[in-house]
């Protein structure tokens, strides 16, 4: 096993809700292309689809402002 890769020995505290405004733009040199159906809804979530430079799909789901 690689040093530093072990799981924490105790259970970490519950995660706090994240700030939807922390959702940012992709890094400039990442080569991401928005997919054709770029923004859609999934229940309470907004869906953003991208194609990576190697063609693989990347989808981000984030809370809507009214849900947050």
């Amino acid at each position, binding site marked *: 096993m690689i040093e530093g890769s072990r799981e924490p020995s105790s259970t970490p505290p519950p995660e706090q809700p*994240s700030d939807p405004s922390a959702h940012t733009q992709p*890094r400039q040199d990442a080569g991401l292309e928005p997919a054709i159906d770029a923004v859609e809804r999934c229940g309470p979530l907004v869906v953003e689809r991208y194609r990576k430079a190697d063609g693989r799909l990347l989808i981000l789901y984030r809370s809507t402002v009214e849900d947050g």
Partner: protein
Amino acid sequence: MGELRFNELRGEHVDYAIHRQERTFLPPADHCPLCPTRPGGAETEIPFEAFEIAVFENRFPAFEAPRGVAEVVVYTDRHDGSFATLAPKRARALMWVWRERYAELGAREDVDYVLVFENRGVEVGVTLHHPHGQIYGYPFLPPVPAAELEADERLGGCAPCELLRRELHDGRRVLYDNEDVVVYIPYAARWSYEAHVVLRTHRASLPECTPAELESLATALQALTRGYDALFTRPFPYVMAMHQAPTTAALRQAGHVHVEFYPPLRSAEKLKYLAGSEQGGGTFIADALPEQSARELREAIARAL
């Protein structure tokens, strides 16, 4: 591209995805490919500085088009933690993500079965600690859900419905329940702390669930996983698998949403191994009675909530 072969003696497929031998193996936290991409840092799988839930096609897929698909579902941009420690709102959001992926992948011609799953802990072969799960879209119906369809035949109807009725009638193995979901250790569990999380109402797949049922499912899953961590006061390894209806036209109603957990621990420090009888004979030799395990786990869930 992998190669799918059919093992005639076992009557099952074997997927040769030999490129997976090169996949990232237990990297240090500062080289985690599932973390967000930090300013000035190396690009990860998610080239954003922050995100909530991300899904991407696996760089080392067990299945890929035109014969299935393999996706990674990253639950949070925080490296530490687990499904159990997600904020409840995030866990609820994850149910919607699973629902959407089932619908989209299940609509593909090359996908016959969508399996949402999570491996947690090095004990079950985890190679990345960042909280995440996976989704496989199989180009065939795998043996375990196929066996559940045979159970439907044997029991003369929906097997999870009938087994839930029996567990509620008995009551000794029920761990937790809410308005829409029941969690129990099955009467004939294979693993000491195996647990099934079952919707009370017959729903073939997540897209059939109401928003309230999705919320109840998230709440029940977190109750169980928090109880697991409280049981031995340590991160509790498990394999989690969600079973829904196959996505072929003829079988789209042949399922009942439930989530099965297969934890390998049989005590705080001892693992259950699949050995001679399990592998050679196909018969589990269990180390604990489900009723005793249920008492312990029920108390642990009560401590955790």
